[in-house]
Protein backbone atom coordinates (compact mmCIF):
# COMPACT_ATOMS: atom_id res chain seq x y z
CA UNK A 1 0.00 0.00 0.00
CA UNK A 2 1.32 3.40 -0.99
CA UNK A 3 0.42 6.19 1.39
CA UNK A 4 0.98 9.94 1.02
CA UNK A 5 1.05 12.18 4.09
CA UNK A 6 1.09 15.96 3.57
CA UNK A 7 2.89 17.76 6.40
CA UNK A 8 2.79 21.46 7.22
CA UNK A 9 5.13 23.70 9.15
CA UNK A 10 3.47 25.85 11.82
CA UNK A 11 4.48 28.08 14.72
CA UNK A 12 4.67 26.24 18.03
CA UNK A 13 1.49 26.69 20.09
CA UNK A 14 3.26 28.75 22.73
CA UNK A 15 4.60 31.26 20.17
CA UNK A 16 3.92 34.91 20.60
CA UNK A 17 1.79 35.96 17.67
CA UNK A 18 2.81 39.26 16.06
CA UNK A 19 2.51 40.87 12.64
CA UNK A 20 4.66 43.23 10.60
CA UNK A 21 4.32 45.40 7.49
CA UNK A 22 1.22 47.19 8.69
CA UNK A 23 -0.29 43.95 10.01
CA UNK A 24 -0.13 42.21 6.64
CA UNK A 25 2.58 39.63 7.45
CA UNK A 26 3.10 37.13 10.24
CA UNK A 27 6.30 37.89 12.10
CA UNK A 28 8.55 34.83 12.43
CA UNK A 29 10.86 36.65 14.89
CA UNK A 30 11.60 34.46 17.87
CA UNK A 31 9.06 31.84 16.73
CA UNK A 32 9.88 28.13 16.88
CA UNK A 33 8.41 26.23 13.96
CA UNK A 34 7.26 22.65 14.30
CA UNK A 35 5.55 19.96 12.26
CA UNK A 36 1.80 20.54 12.46
CA UNK A 37 0.66 18.36 15.42
CA UNK A 38 -2.29 16.59 13.78
CA UNK A 39 -0.11 15.78 10.75
CA UNK A 40 2.67 14.37 12.93
CA UNK A 41 0.86 12.70 15.80
CA UNK A 42 -2.09 11.16 13.98
CA UNK A 43 -1.79 11.20 10.16
CA UNK A 44 1.87 10.23 9.88
CA UNK A 45 1.88 7.69 12.71
CA UNK A 46 -1.26 5.92 11.46
CA UNK A 47 0.23 5.77 7.96
CA UNK A 48 3.40 4.18 9.37
CA UNK A 49 1.37 1.70 11.45
CA UNK A 50 -0.59 0.62 8.36
CA UNK A 51 2.64 0.18 6.43
CA UNK A 52 4.20 -1.84 9.25
CA UNK A 53 1.20 -4.15 9.25
CA UNK A 54 0.53 -4.50 5.54
CA UNK A 55 3.73 -3.46 3.80
CA UNK A 56 4.13 -0.65 1.31
CA UNK A 57 5.54 2.80 1.48
CA UNK A 58 4.88 6.08 3.29
CA UNK A 59 5.81 9.27 1.45
CA UNK A 60 5.61 12.67 3.12
CA UNK A 61 5.06 15.78 1.03
CA UNK A 62 5.65 19.32 2.17
CA UNK A 63 5.12 22.61 0.41
CA UNK A 64 7.72 25.01 1.75
CA UNK A 65 11.15 26.52 1.42
CA UNK A 66 14.56 25.07 2.26
CA UNK A 67 14.24 26.05 5.94
CA UNK A 68 11.60 23.29 6.33
CA UNK A 69 14.22 20.57 6.11
CA UNK A 70 14.21 20.00 9.87
CA UNK A 71 10.54 19.00 10.04
CA UNK A 72 10.87 16.83 6.92
CA UNK A 73 13.82 14.98 8.48
CA UNK A 74 11.78 14.53 11.64
CA UNK A 75 8.99 12.88 9.62
CA UNK A 76 11.57 10.56 8.08
CA UNK A 77 13.02 9.85 11.53
CA UNK A 78 9.57 8.89 12.82
CA UNK A 79 9.34 6.36 10.01
CA UNK A 80 8.33 7.80 6.62
CA UNK A 81 10.29 6.18 3.77
CA UNK A 82 10.88 9.19 1.58
CA UNK A 83 9.97 12.82 1.23
CA UNK A 84 9.06 15.32 -1.44
CA UNK A 85 9.39 19.05 -0.91
CA UNK A 86 7.62 21.37 -3.31
CA UNK A 87 9.91 24.38 -3.33
CA UNK A 88 7.52 27.27 -2.78
CA UNK A 89 6.17 29.52 -0.08
CA UNK A 90 2.84 27.96 1.01
CA UNK A 91 0.79 31.12 0.50
CA UNK A 92 -2.69 29.66 0.87
CA UNK A 93 -4.51 26.36 1.28
CA UNK A 94 -5.63 26.06 -2.34
CA UNK A 95 -2.08 26.60 -3.58
CA UNK A 96 -0.81 23.90 -1.19
CA UNK A 97 -3.58 21.46 -2.10
CA UNK A 98 -2.97 22.00 -5.83
CA UNK A 99 0.75 21.16 -5.43
CA UNK A 100 0.00 18.00 -3.47
CA UNK A 101 -2.72 16.92 -5.89
CA UNK A 102 -0.37 17.48 -8.85
CA UNK A 103 2.20 15.18 -7.23
CA UNK A 104 -0.40 12.57 -6.26
CA UNK A 105 -1.71 12.40 -9.82
CA UNK A 106 1.62 11.02 -11.00
CA UNK A 107 2.07 8.44 -8.25
CA UNK A 108 -1.14 6.38 -7.75
CA UNK A 109 -1.37 6.48 -3.99
CA UNK A 110 -3.85 4.11 -2.32
CA UNK A 111 -4.36 6.47 0.56
CA UNK A 112 -3.68 10.10 1.39
CA UNK A 113 -3.80 10.89 5.11
CA UNK A 114 -3.74 14.58 6.06
CA UNK A 115 -4.17 16.21 9.47
CA UNK A 116 -7.62 17.68 10.06
CA UNK A 117 -6.31 21.26 10.36
CA UNK A 118 -3.15 23.27 10.82
CA UNK A 119 -2.81 25.08 14.11
CA UNK A 120 -1.97 28.42 12.46
CA UNK A 121 -4.96 29.07 10.20
CA UNK A 122 -7.31 26.46 11.73
CA UNK A 123 -8.98 26.12 8.36
CA UNK A 124 -9.61 22.39 7.79
CA UNK A 125 -9.01 22.91 4.07
CA UNK A 126 -6.17 21.00 2.48
CA UNK A 127 -7.45 17.40 2.75
CA UNK A 128 -10.88 18.18 1.28
CA UNK A 129 -9.34 20.29 -1.48
CA UNK A 130 -6.92 17.52 -2.48
CA UNK A 131 -9.85 15.07 -2.62
CA UNK A 132 -11.89 17.37 -4.84
CA UNK A 133 -8.93 18.04 -7.13
CA UNK A 134 -8.39 14.28 -7.51
CA UNK A 135 -12.13 13.47 -7.58
CA UNK A 136 -11.68 11.08 -4.64
CA UNK A 137 -13.87 10.22 -1.69
CA UNK A 138 -12.79 11.88 1.55
CA UNK A 139 -13.71 11.35 5.19
CA UNK A 140 -12.70 13.95 7.78
CA UNK A 141 -12.36 14.16 11.58
CA UNK A 142 -11.25 10.54 11.53
CA UNK A 143 -10.57 8.82 14.87
CA UNK A 144 -10.09 5.26 13.66
CA UNK A 145 -8.93 3.80 10.35
CA UNK A 146 -8.48 0.17 9.37
CA UNK A 147 -7.86 -1.19 5.89
CA UNK A 148 -8.72 -4.67 4.73
CA UNK A 149 -8.79 -5.92 1.14
CA UNK A 150 -8.83 -2.42 -0.28
CA UNK A 151 -11.73 -1.28 1.89
CA UNK A 152 -11.32 1.29 4.67
CA UNK A 153 -13.39 1.12 7.83
CA UNK A 154 -13.44 4.55 9.37
CA UNK A 155 -14.78 6.07 12.57
CA UNK A 156 -15.41 9.79 12.23
CA UNK A 157 -16.73 12.49 14.56
CA UNK A 158 -20.27 13.76 14.02
CA UNK A 159 -22.35 16.08 16.21
CA UNK A 160 -22.81 14.36 19.53
CA UNK A 161 -20.99 11.14 18.69
CA UNK A 162 -19.27 9.12 16.02
CA UNK A 163 -20.22 7.37 12.81
CA UNK A 164 -18.68 4.29 11.19
CA UNK A 165 -18.18 4.56 7.46
CA UNK A 166 -16.80 2.22 4.81
CA UNK A 167 -15.11 3.38 1.63
CA UNK A 168 -13.02 1.77 -1.07
CA UNK A 169 -9.48 2.94 -1.74
CA UNK A 170 -8.15 5.23 -3.13
CA UNK A 171 -9.30 7.65 -0.52
CA UNK A 172 -8.38 10.83 1.35
CA UNK A 173 -8.53 10.84 5.16
CA UNK A 174 -8.32 13.88 7.47
CA UNK A 175 -6.96 12.65 10.79
CA UNK A 176 -7.65 13.80 14.31
CA UNK A 177 -7.01 12.81 17.90
CA UNK A 178 -7.34 9.12 18.78
CA UNK A 179 -6.30 7.89 15.32
CA UNK A 180 -2.83 7.03 16.64
CA UNK A 181 -0.42 7.58 19.53
CA UNK A 182 2.34 10.09 18.85
CA UNK A 183 5.79 8.56 18.36
CA UNK A 184 9.09 10.05 19.41
CA UNK A 185 11.89 9.40 16.91
CA UNK A 186 14.58 7.07 18.27
CA UNK A 187 18.30 7.28 17.58
CA UNK A 188 18.14 4.66 14.82
CA UNK A 189 15.34 6.61 13.14
CA UNK A 190 17.21 9.90 13.42
CA UNK A 191 20.39 8.40 11.93
CA UNK A 192 18.43 6.65 9.16
CA UNK A 193 16.54 9.83 8.27
CA UNK A 194 19.75 11.49 7.08
CA UNK A 195 20.10 9.10 4.18
CA UNK A 196 16.44 8.66 3.19
CA UNK A 197 15.57 10.31 -0.13
CA UNK A 198 14.28 13.88 -0.09
CA UNK A 199 13.33 15.11 -3.55
CA UNK A 200 12.85 18.82 -4.18
CA UNK A 201 10.48 19.70 -7.01
CA UNK A 202 9.40 23.08 -8.40
CA UNK A 203 5.85 24.33 -7.81
CA UNK A 204 3.08 24.39 -10.38
CA UNK A 205 1.62 27.79 -11.15
CA UNK A 206 -1.75 28.02 -9.42
CA UNK A 207 -4.36 30.74 -9.39
CA UNK A 208 -5.15 32.39 -6.07
CA UNK A 209 -8.73 32.08 -4.85
CA UNK A 210 -8.43 33.67 -1.41
CA UNK A 211 -6.16 36.39 -0.03
CA UNK A 212 -5.52 37.27 3.59
CA UNK A 213 -5.38 41.07 3.42
CA UNK A 214 -4.36 41.73 7.00
CA UNK A 215 -4.48 40.54 10.59
CA UNK A 216 -5.52 42.02 13.87
CA UNK A 217 -4.80 41.14 17.46
CA UNK A 218 -7.35 41.36 20.27
CA UNK A 219 -7.48 44.98 21.40
CA UNK A 220 -6.72 44.23 25.01
CA UNK A 221 -6.66 41.32 27.35
CA UNK A 222 -9.89 40.64 29.20
CA UNK A 223 -10.19 42.13 32.64
CA UNK A 224 -11.18 39.36 35.02
CA UNK A 225 -13.73 40.40 37.60
CA UNK A 226 -12.92 38.55 40.81
CA UNK A 227 -15.61 37.37 43.19
CA UNK A 228 -14.73 36.40 46.76
CA UNK A 229 -15.00 32.67 47.50
CA UNK A 230 -17.45 33.32 50.34
CA UNK A 231 -19.76 35.27 48.03
CA UNK A 232 -20.78 32.81 45.32
CA UNK A 233 -24.22 34.44 45.23
CA UNK A 234 -22.54 37.50 43.72
CA UNK A 235 -21.14 35.40 40.87
CA UNK A 236 -24.60 34.04 40.10
CA UNK A 237 -26.01 37.59 40.19
CA UNK A 238 -23.32 38.83 37.77
CA UNK A 239 -23.86 35.90 35.40
CA UNK A 240 -27.59 36.51 35.42
CA UNK A 241 -27.82 40.30 35.44
CA UNK A 242 -24.59 41.56 33.90
CA UNK A 243 -23.44 38.82 31.53
CA UNK A 244 -27.01 37.57 30.91
CA UNK A 245 -25.46 34.14 30.45
CA UNK A 246 -27.78 32.17 32.76
Amino acid sequence: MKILVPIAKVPDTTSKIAFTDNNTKFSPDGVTFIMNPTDEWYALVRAIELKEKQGGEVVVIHVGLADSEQIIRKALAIGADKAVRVDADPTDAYFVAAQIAAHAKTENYDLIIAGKETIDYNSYEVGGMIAELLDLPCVALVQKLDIENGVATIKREIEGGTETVEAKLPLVICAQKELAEARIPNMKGIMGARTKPLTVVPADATEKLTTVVNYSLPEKAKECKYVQPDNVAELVRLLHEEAKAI
Partner: protein
Amino acid sequence: MAVLSFVEIFEGKIKKASVEAAYYGSKVAAQLGTDSVAVVLGAASAEELATLGTVGVKKVLHANDARFNNFDSKAFSKAVGEAVNAAGANVVVLSFNQNGKLLAPRLSVRLKAGYVPGAVELPEFNGATATAKKNVFSGKATAHYQLNTEKKVIAVNPNSLSPVRGTGTAAVEAFATTLTDADFSTVVKGADLIVGEIPLSEAELVVSAGRGLKGPENWGMIEELAKLLGAATACSRAVADVDWRPHHEHVGQTGLTIRPNLYIAVGISGAIQHLAGVNGSKVIVVINTDPEAPFFKAADYGIVGDAFQIVPQLIAEIKKLKAAH
Protein backbone atom coordinates in the same frame (compact mmCIF):
# COMPACT_ATOMS: atom_id res chain seq x y z
CA MET B 1 -28.22 35.97 -8.57
CA ALA B 2 -28.87 34.36 -5.21
CA VAL B 3 -27.24 33.30 -1.98
CA LEU B 4 -27.45 29.55 -1.42
CA SER B 5 -27.18 28.06 2.04
CA PHE B 6 -26.51 24.37 2.59
CA VAL B 7 -28.89 23.03 5.22
CA GLU B 8 -28.53 19.68 6.99
CA ILE B 9 -31.19 17.51 8.58
CA PHE B 10 -30.65 15.33 11.62
CA GLU B 11 -33.39 12.97 12.81
CA GLY B 12 -35.98 14.87 10.79
CA LYS B 13 -35.06 18.30 12.15
CA ILE B 14 -32.94 21.08 10.70
CA LYS B 15 -29.61 21.17 12.54
CA LYS B 16 -29.12 24.20 14.78
CA ALA B 17 -25.85 24.96 12.98
CA SER B 18 -27.74 24.95 9.67
CA VAL B 19 -30.37 27.37 10.96
CA GLU B 20 -27.48 29.72 11.73
CA ALA B 21 -26.03 29.19 8.25
CA ALA B 22 -29.40 29.86 6.59
CA TYR B 23 -29.89 32.99 8.70
CA TYR B 24 -26.39 34.15 7.75
CA GLY B 25 -27.19 33.40 4.10
CA SER B 26 -30.36 35.51 4.31
CA LYS B 27 -28.38 38.39 5.83
CA VAL B 28 -25.85 38.18 2.99
CA ALA B 29 -28.70 38.05 0.44
CA ALA B 30 -30.11 41.23 2.00
CA GLN B 31 -26.68 42.90 1.75
CA LEU B 32 -26.57 42.02 -1.95
CA GLY B 33 -30.23 42.76 -2.64
CA THR B 34 -30.85 39.21 -3.83
CA ASP B 35 -32.76 36.10 -2.75
CA SER B 36 -31.90 33.67 0.01
CA VAL B 37 -32.21 30.08 -1.23
CA ALA B 38 -31.41 26.89 0.68
CA VAL B 39 -30.52 23.43 -0.57
CA VAL B 40 -31.43 20.31 1.39
CA LEU B 41 -30.20 16.84 0.40
CA GLY B 42 -31.99 13.74 1.65
CA ALA B 43 -35.28 12.99 3.34
CA ALA B 44 -37.08 15.79 5.19
CA SER B 45 -40.68 16.87 5.62
CA ALA B 46 -41.92 19.83 3.62
CA GLU B 47 -43.33 21.33 6.86
CA GLU B 48 -39.92 21.28 8.51
CA LEU B 49 -38.23 22.82 5.44
CA ALA B 50 -40.85 25.55 5.15
CA THR B 51 -39.76 26.80 8.62
CA LEU B 52 -36.55 28.06 7.00
CA GLY B 53 -38.75 30.99 5.97
CA THR B 54 -38.54 32.19 9.56
CA VAL B 55 -34.86 32.97 9.03
CA GLY B 56 -35.43 34.66 5.69
CA VAL B 57 -35.11 31.79 3.21
CA LYS B 58 -37.43 32.35 0.22
CA LYS B 59 -37.01 29.02 -1.53
CA VAL B 60 -35.74 25.58 -0.58
CA LEU B 61 -34.34 23.26 -3.25
CA HIS B 62 -35.06 19.82 -1.86
CA ALA B 63 -33.40 16.72 -3.32
CA ASN B 64 -35.64 14.19 -1.58
CA ASP B 65 -33.41 11.29 -2.49
CA ALA B 66 -32.61 8.61 0.11
CA ARG B 67 -29.07 8.23 -1.23
CA PHE B 68 -28.34 11.59 0.43
CA ASN B 69 -29.56 10.50 3.86
CA ASN B 70 -25.95 9.93 4.87
CA PHE B 71 -23.18 12.41 4.31
CA ASP B 72 -20.82 11.55 1.46
CA SER B 73 -18.50 14.48 0.80
CA LYS B 74 -17.82 13.68 -2.84
CA ALA B 75 -21.47 13.18 -3.77
CA PHE B 76 -22.58 16.18 -1.71
CA SER B 77 -20.03 18.42 -3.39
CA LYS B 78 -21.35 17.47 -6.81
CA ALA B 79 -25.00 17.85 -5.76
CA VAL B 80 -24.52 21.23 -4.07
CA GLY B 81 -22.53 22.33 -7.12
CA GLU B 82 -25.60 21.52 -9.24
CA ALA B 83 -27.82 23.42 -6.80
CA VAL B 84 -25.53 26.45 -7.13
CA ASN B 85 -26.15 26.39 -10.87
CA ALA B 86 -29.89 25.78 -10.49
CA ALA B 87 -30.24 28.71 -8.09
CA GLY B 88 -27.86 30.95 -10.03
CA ALA B 89 -26.04 31.47 -6.75
CA ASN B 90 -22.80 33.38 -6.45
CA VAL B 91 -22.41 33.01 -2.68
CA VAL B 92 -22.66 29.65 -0.88
CA VAL B 93 -23.01 29.60 2.90
CA LEU B 94 -22.48 26.55 5.12
CA SER B 95 -21.94 25.94 8.79
CA PHE B 96 -18.32 25.41 9.83
CA ASN B 97 -19.52 22.25 11.58
CA GLN B 98 -18.32 18.66 11.20
CA ASN B 99 -19.65 18.15 7.66
CA GLY B 100 -19.26 21.76 6.55
CA LYS B 101 -15.55 21.73 7.36
CA LEU B 102 -15.12 19.08 4.65
CA LEU B 103 -17.82 20.03 2.15
CA ALA B 104 -16.87 23.73 1.98
CA PRO B 105 -13.26 23.28 0.80
CA ARG B 106 -14.47 20.73 -1.78
CA LEU B 107 -17.00 23.31 -3.05
CA SER B 108 -14.34 26.00 -3.11
CA VAL B 109 -12.32 23.86 -5.53
CA ARG B 110 -15.36 22.75 -7.55
CA LEU B 111 -16.66 26.30 -7.99
CA LYS B 112 -13.20 27.92 -8.23
CA ALA B 113 -14.47 30.08 -5.41
CA GLY B 114 -12.58 31.98 -2.74
CA TYR B 115 -13.39 30.56 0.66
CA VAL B 116 -13.60 31.84 4.24
CA PRO B 117 -13.28 28.87 6.63
CA GLY B 118 -15.02 29.86 9.85
CA ALA B 119 -16.30 33.42 9.38
CA VAL B 120 -17.25 35.00 12.71
CA GLU B 121 -19.14 37.99 11.31
CA LEU B 122 -21.08 38.98 8.21
CA PRO B 123 -18.86 39.77 5.21
CA GLU B 124 -18.35 43.26 3.83
CA PHE B 125 -18.87 43.70 0.12
CA ASN B 126 -16.98 46.18 -1.98
CA GLY B 127 -17.98 45.80 -5.61
CA ALA B 128 -17.22 42.21 -6.60
CA THR B 129 -14.98 41.68 -3.57
CA ALA B 130 -16.02 40.33 -0.19
CA THR B 131 -13.99 40.49 3.02
CA ALA B 132 -14.76 38.46 6.11
CA LYS B 133 -13.09 37.95 9.45
CA LYS B 134 -12.01 34.65 10.86
CA ASN B 135 -10.03 33.56 13.91
CA VAL B 136 -6.50 32.30 13.33
CA PHE B 137 -3.63 31.05 15.49
CA SER B 138 -6.10 29.25 17.76
CA GLY B 139 -8.01 32.43 18.50
CA LYS B 140 -4.94 34.53 19.27
CA ALA B 141 -5.51 36.75 16.21
CA THR B 142 -8.08 37.58 13.56
CA ALA B 143 -7.43 37.44 9.83
CA HIS B 144 -9.34 39.37 7.21
CA TYR B 145 -9.95 37.10 4.23
CA GLN B 146 -10.62 38.69 0.88
CA LEU B 147 -12.47 36.85 -1.87
CA ASN B 148 -12.01 38.27 -5.35
CA THR B 149 -13.54 35.38 -7.25
CA GLU B 150 -16.93 35.60 -8.92
CA LYS B 151 -18.29 32.79 -6.74
CA LYS B 152 -17.67 32.79 -3.01
CA VAL B 153 -17.95 30.16 -0.29
CA ILE B 154 -18.36 31.14 3.36
CA ALA B 155 -18.47 28.65 6.23
CA VAL B 156 -19.82 30.38 9.32
CA ASN B 157 -18.44 29.49 12.73
CA PRO B 158 -21.16 27.95 14.93
CA ASN B 159 -22.53 30.34 17.59
CA SER B 160 -21.24 33.42 15.75
CA LEU B 161 -24.57 35.11 15.32
CA SER B 162 -27.92 34.31 16.89
CA PRO B 163 -30.72 33.83 14.37
CA VAL B 164 -33.68 36.14 14.85
CA ARG B 165 -36.81 34.30 13.80
CA GLY B 166 -39.52 36.04 11.80
CA THR B 167 -42.78 34.71 10.44
CA GLY B 168 -42.02 33.75 6.82
CA THR B 169 -42.64 30.44 5.10
CA ALA B 170 -40.18 29.13 2.55
CA ALA B 171 -41.42 27.67 -0.74
CA VAL B 172 -40.17 24.10 -1.05
CA GLU B 173 -39.30 22.95 -4.58
CA ALA B 174 -38.27 19.46 -5.65
CA PHE B 175 -34.73 19.44 -6.92
CA ALA B 176 -33.38 16.59 -9.03
CA THR B 177 -29.64 16.05 -9.23
CA THR B 178 -27.90 14.18 -12.05
CA LEU B 179 -26.01 11.93 -9.62
CA THR B 180 -25.83 8.24 -10.39
CA ASP B 181 -25.05 5.48 -7.91
CA ALA B 182 -21.42 5.62 -9.06
CA ASP B 183 -21.13 9.10 -7.56
CA PHE B 184 -21.59 7.73 -4.05
CA SER B 185 -18.52 6.26 -2.45
CA THR B 186 -19.00 5.99 1.31
CA VAL B 187 -21.39 3.66 3.12
CA VAL B 188 -22.48 4.41 6.69
CA LYS B 189 -22.43 1.27 8.83
CA GLY B 190 -23.67 2.75 12.05
CA ALA B 191 -23.53 5.64 14.48
CA ASP B 192 -22.67 5.82 18.12
CA LEU B 193 -24.44 8.79 19.65
CA ILE B 194 -24.00 9.84 23.21
CA VAL B 195 -27.60 9.72 24.30
CA GLY B 196 -29.17 11.88 26.95
CA GLU B 197 -26.42 14.47 26.76
CA ILE B 198 -26.27 17.78 24.95
CA PRO B 199 -23.72 17.53 22.11
CA LEU B 200 -20.75 19.59 23.22
CA SER B 201 -20.26 21.16 19.80
CA GLU B 202 -23.81 22.53 19.86
CA ALA B 203 -24.06 23.47 23.55
CA GLU B 204 -24.67 27.07 24.56
CA LEU B 205 -23.58 26.48 28.14
CA VAL B 206 -20.64 24.29 29.10
CA VAL B 207 -19.31 23.22 32.50
CA SER B 208 -15.77 21.90 32.29
CA ALA B 209 -13.36 20.48 34.82
CA GLY B 210 -9.76 19.38 35.02
CA ARG B 211 -7.12 17.89 37.24
CA GLY B 212 -8.08 20.16 40.11
CA LEU B 213 -10.93 17.74 40.78
CA LYS B 214 -8.41 15.16 41.98
CA GLY B 215 -10.22 12.06 40.69
CA PRO B 216 -13.03 10.82 38.43
CA GLU B 217 -15.21 10.04 41.46
CA ASN B 218 -15.57 13.79 42.09
CA TRP B 219 -17.39 14.64 38.86
CA GLY B 220 -20.83 14.24 40.42
CA MET B 221 -21.03 17.92 41.34
CA ILE B 222 -19.87 18.97 37.85
CA GLU B 223 -22.58 16.85 36.25
CA GLU B 224 -25.15 18.18 38.71
CA LEU B 225 -24.19 21.78 37.94
CA ALA B 226 -24.34 21.07 34.19
CA LYS B 227 -27.73 19.39 34.47
CA LEU B 228 -29.10 22.27 36.51
CA LEU B 229 -27.97 24.78 33.86
CA GLY B 230 -28.92 22.60 30.88
CA ALA B 231 -25.22 22.63 30.00
CA ALA B 232 -22.91 20.10 28.38
CA THR B 233 -19.91 18.78 30.30
CA ALA B 234 -16.35 19.10 29.01
CA CYS B 235 -12.87 18.45 30.34
CA SER B 236 -9.20 19.24 29.90
CA ARG B 237 -6.83 17.02 27.97
CA ALA B 238 -5.04 15.92 31.13
CA VAL B 239 -8.11 14.19 32.55
CA ALA B 240 -9.19 12.68 29.20
CA ASP B 241 -5.70 11.22 28.79
CA VAL B 242 -5.87 9.41 32.14
CA ASP B 243 -9.44 8.26 31.34
CA TRP B 244 -11.11 10.14 34.17
CA ARG B 245 -13.44 11.42 31.47
CA PRO B 246 -14.30 10.23 27.94
CA HIS B 247 -12.24 11.62 25.05
CA HIS B 248 -15.24 13.20 23.37
CA GLU B 249 -15.39 15.68 26.27
CA HIS B 250 -11.87 16.95 25.67
CA VAL B 251 -11.80 20.57 24.54
CA GLY B 252 -8.60 22.27 23.45
CA GLN B 253 -6.21 22.43 20.58
CA THR B 254 -6.19 18.71 19.84
CA GLY B 255 -9.74 18.14 21.04
CA LEU B 256 -12.92 20.02 20.23
CA THR B 257 -13.08 23.75 19.63
CA ILE B 258 -16.21 25.24 21.15
CA ARG B 259 -17.78 28.70 21.28
CA PRO B 260 -20.54 28.52 23.89
CA ASN B 261 -22.21 31.55 25.44
CA LEU B 262 -20.92 30.50 28.86
CA TYR B 263 -17.91 28.36 29.74
CA ILE B 264 -17.34 27.52 33.39
CA ALA B 265 -13.86 26.06 34.01
CA VAL B 266 -13.35 24.29 37.33
CA GLY B 267 -9.87 23.23 38.38
CA ILE B 268 -8.32 23.83 34.94
CA SER B 269 -5.13 25.89 34.91
CA GLY B 270 -5.74 27.19 31.40
CA ALA B 271 -2.68 26.11 29.44
CA ILE B 272 -2.52 27.78 26.04
CA GLN B 273 -3.51 24.50 24.34
CA HIS B 274 -6.71 24.40 26.38
CA LEU B 275 -7.49 28.07 25.78
CA ALA B 276 -7.17 27.48 22.04
CA GLY B 277 -10.30 25.34 22.19
CA VAL B 278 -12.43 27.64 24.31
CA ASN B 279 -11.30 31.24 23.90
CA GLY B 280 -14.14 31.94 21.50
CA SER B 281 -16.61 31.50 24.39
CA LYS B 282 -18.61 34.64 25.05
CA VAL B 283 -18.35 34.52 28.85
CA ILE B 284 -15.68 32.57 30.73
CA VAL B 285 -15.85 31.80 34.46
CA VAL B 286 -12.76 30.35 36.13
CA ILE B 287 -12.71 28.64 39.51
CA ASN B 288 -9.22 27.67 40.64
CA THR B 289 -7.26 27.47 43.89
CA ASP B 290 -4.17 28.94 42.23
CA PRO B 291 -4.40 32.73 41.85
CA GLU B 292 -1.57 32.50 39.29
CA ALA B 293 -3.47 30.08 37.04
CA PRO B 294 -3.13 31.49 33.48
CA PHE B 295 -6.83 30.89 32.86
CA PHE B 296 -7.71 33.97 34.96
CA LYS B 297 -6.13 36.14 32.24
CA ALA B 298 -8.72 34.84 29.76
CA ALA B 299 -11.63 34.91 32.23
CA ASP B 300 -14.48 37.37 32.56
CA TYR B 301 -15.26 36.25 36.11
CA GLY B 302 -13.00 34.43 38.51
CA ILE B 303 -13.07 32.91 41.97
CA VAL B 304 -9.83 31.96 43.64
CA GLY B 305 -10.94 29.09 45.81
CA ASP B 306 -11.46 25.40 46.32
CA ALA B 307 -13.79 23.78 43.81
CA PHE B 308 -15.09 21.40 46.47
CA GLN B 309 -16.44 24.37 48.41
CA ILE B 310 -17.35 26.70 45.55
CA VAL B 311 -19.21 24.32 43.22
CA PRO B 312 -21.78 23.11 45.82
CA GLN B 313 -22.47 26.75 46.73
CA LEU B 314 -22.81 27.60 43.06
CA ILE B 315 -25.36 24.79 42.66
CA ALA B 316 -27.31 26.07 45.68
CA GLU B 317 -27.29 29.68 44.43
CA ILE B 318 -28.37 28.72 40.92
CA LYS B 319 -31.21 26.67 42.40
CA LYS B 320 -32.30 29.81 44.28
CA LEU B 321 -32.11 31.84 41.07
CA LYS B 322 -34.14 29.24 39.17
CA ALA B 323 -36.73 29.16 41.94
CA ALA B 324 -37.06 32.94 41.85
CA HIS B 325 -37.61 33.14 38.08
